């Protein structure tokens, strides 16, 4: 929440109360205010201002207050000014320091004037409690900020780990393909190769029948290889199809009907881009469910060779704060930007989320 420039904080109010007590003490001493008493008053004021401007050991206040007690032996009216020191001690919860002076005031001052140090004491303690409360709140806020900062750091690490995992999965995928090609195609092709070589030797020696057998075997092996190749491609395609199916299911299983327009081939997308697109769709639909009661939800996914665009639009918004401040959208933006894409939000009668991604991951 933005804070007003003119807002009074605890420290300002504590100082304001000191000024108020100074004025009040002057008012109470008004009838007896001669030049020596004015001198004492000014010395007390000087002592308080000195502490306002410069930081001294709080023990020096004890010296000042003790000197005032000594002065009050000769100028009884000056006892009332001890209330200012009582207030100062109380506002710092220095109970041991204020007690003797407060007791001295109780012993010396007559009843109506006695209320002044008592009020000063209460006021000082109130200020001290306020300060304590404020410090606790500040500490809690600092801890929360620290937690948020750590979470953000964690998230950065996760994003990096995610990118590493993508790289790893790509390598694994390559290994998998290599393994399929080696296990299924390699043997057959090698055998076909050897059979054809043998067939060549047989033809040179004029053993035509045996050469024809070898040719038939080589053909079998080559046909077999073609079958194996088709099978391997089907195995690889099945993962991509599953991913595309999951994306479609997101829209189909959403609690509100979605008017989905899909153009282009999702299978052309890089796996990392497809995964971020999936996460973006999921986040967008979650936000629709959380922040709106829509009568219309439109989704457009356009895939071209260079870019992929996602647009999710809905109406029926709740009157809420700017959703851009939400964590989900922030994390989505980071993931999209990590791939070289961008996220835009348009909000008026409807809420429109636009995500643009490169179709191929930028390396």
């Amino acid at each position, binding site marked *: 929440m933005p804070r007003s420039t003119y807002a009074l904080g605890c420290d300002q109010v504590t100082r304001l109360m000191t000024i108020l007590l100074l004025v009040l003490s*002057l008012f109470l001493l*008004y*009838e007896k*205010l*001669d*030049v*020596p008493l*004015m*001198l004492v008053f*000014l*010395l007390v*004021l*000087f002592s308080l*201002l*000195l502490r*306002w*401007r410069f930081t001294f050991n709080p023990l020096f206040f004890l010296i000042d207050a003790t000197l005032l007690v000594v002065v009050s032996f000769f100028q009884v009216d000056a006892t009332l000014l001890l209330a200012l020191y009582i207030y100062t001690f109380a506002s710092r919860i220095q109970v041991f320091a204020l007690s003797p002076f407060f007791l001295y005031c109780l012993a010396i001052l007559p009843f109506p004037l006695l209320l002044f140090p008592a009020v000063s004491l209460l006021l000082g303690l109130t200020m001290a409690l306020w300060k304590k409360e404020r410090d606790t709140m500040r500490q809690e806020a600092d801890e929360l900020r620290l937690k948020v900062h750590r979470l953000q750091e964690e998230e950065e690490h996760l994003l990096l780990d995610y990118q590493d995992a993508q790289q790893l999965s790509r390598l694994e995928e390559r290994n998998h393909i290599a393994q399929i090609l080696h296990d299924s195609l390699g043997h057959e092709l090698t055998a076909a190769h050897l059979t054809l070589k043998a067939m060549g030797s047989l033809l040179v020696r004029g053993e035509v029948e045996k050469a024809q057998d070898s040719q038939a075997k080589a053909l079998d092996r080559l046909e077999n290889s073609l079958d194996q190749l088709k099978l391997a491609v089907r195995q690889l395609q099945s993962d991509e199809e599953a991913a595309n199916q999951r994306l479609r299911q997101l829209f189909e299983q959403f609690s509100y009907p979605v008017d989905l327009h899909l153009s282009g081939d999702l299978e052309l997308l890089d796996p990392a881009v497809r995964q971020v697109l999936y996460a973006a769709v999921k986040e967008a639909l979650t936000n629709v469910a959380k922040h709106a009661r829509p009568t219309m939800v439109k989704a457009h996914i356009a895939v071209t060779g260079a870019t992929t665009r996602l647009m999710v639009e809905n109406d029926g918004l709740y009157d809420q704060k700017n959703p851009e401040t939400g964590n989900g959208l922030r994390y989505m933006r980071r993931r999209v930007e990590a791939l070289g894409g961008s996220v835009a939000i348009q909000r008026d009668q409807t809420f429109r989320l636009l995500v643009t991604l490169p179709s191929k991951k930028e390396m």
Partner: protein
Amino acid sequence: MTIFMFALQQNLKQKISLLLLLVLPLVLLFIPSMSGSLPMGFSLFGLLNLYSAFLLTRPVVEDRMQKIVVRIAASPVSHGYYLASHLLASLLLLSVQCLIFVVASFLYFGPEQTNYLVLFLLYFSYSAMVLSLSLAWNSMFRSYATSFALFSGIGSIMCLISGLSFPLSLLPQSIQTMVRVLPTYYLAHGLLMLGKQSGSGILLSAVVLWIFAGIFLLIGSKRRF
């Protein structure tokens, strides 16, 4: 050139300052006095001194308004050194004003009129107080013109009711008690004690003036940008 010399030059460049410091104190000598008391010019000098001090703090205020203070803060010159140099330059000029007035009084009224050394010390204490008061007052404003406009009104009233513009004895008793909180009262009180030749009264007035100077200095010397 040191800041002290620069401040001195800046102050002396203002023609009105020269008029207030050198000429007007001499004019005050010709104001007729009431019988049985010190000449009226002695207390009116407090009013002149107050406005002179206000004019002499102008360079400090203008430095703040023109953001020169920000540049000084970035330089190796400390704020304390800068402020002390300016205040000492102004105090020197005010002391010269006091000295001119005291010497001229000595020559005009004769040596029997009063103790001129004590009178000078009282004026010197008062000069330090009004200089600090001007500094503290100006620290509350962002424009020198507004500050001066308000000060000219409040300063005149303050001098009027604290016995500098006309004798304190002519004021009602209730006001006489009330004005004890005003710093300018202590020059009038000191002059009254000087007339009565009360050493303790004069000392008390001078001490109060110095404490007021300290208080105003604590408020006014806070660095503001």
